[in-house]
């Protein structure tokens, strides 16, 4: 049972445009969500997070939106840059634990 889903395996965006990466979850007990960025042959690095008491969190070019009623969150990158090309994972900790459940990832390619 995939509790965190990223239904788009890949996304291609032109430099300067907006990238929107989507994530859906099924476990209503999730109360905190994170996005990680992963380059090939490297470990994922933390990008941005959001608590379920918020519907938006912004950090520079990155904004995460949370729609709890739809069990959906999205990561917006504006403007997109070639260095943003990577695999992005959505994740949530199991309630009352530190165990992170990851989605399958979306490969973002930003082209000039």
């Amino acid at each position: 049972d995939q509790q965190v889903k990223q239904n788009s395996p890949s996304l291609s965006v032109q430099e300067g445009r907006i990238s929107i990466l989507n994530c859906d979850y099924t476990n209503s007990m999730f109360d905190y969500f994170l996005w990680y960025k992963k380059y090939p042959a490297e470990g994922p690095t933390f990008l941005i997070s959001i608590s379920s008491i918020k519907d938006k969190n912004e950090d520079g070019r990155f904004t995460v939106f949370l729609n709890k009623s739809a069990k959906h969150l999205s990561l917006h990158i504006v403007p997109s840059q070639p260095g943003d090309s990577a695999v992005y994972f959505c994740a949530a900790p199991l309630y009352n634990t530190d165990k992170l459940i990851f989605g399958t990832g979306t490969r973002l390619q930003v082209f000039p």
Partner: protein
Amino acid sequence: SQTIHQWPATLVQPVGSPLSLECTVEGTSNPNLYWYRQAAGRGLQLLFYSIGIDQISSEVPQNLSASRPQDRQFILSSKKLLLSDSGFYLCAWSKTGYGYTFGSGTRLTVV
């Protein structure tokens, strides 16, 4: 500052051979430790989770085992590798209330 070391970076092993991947954390004590695997075309799957020395929980049934002989050392092992064990293995640590820090990963290819 805290650092996490994971080695080797790449490994090619024949089917049926043993496996030992090591992960060590520096600059913190009593971390939570994790082994994840990213198989081709799939997400990050949690394999093992440890909250302390010799305290390990297995998240999925598999051909692998984990051990934590010291507070900041986490080892992933197999007695006999299968082709399906191929993947990218990641070690991570966390402290309650803080995020994860991942190692640089090991690319394992079983041939």
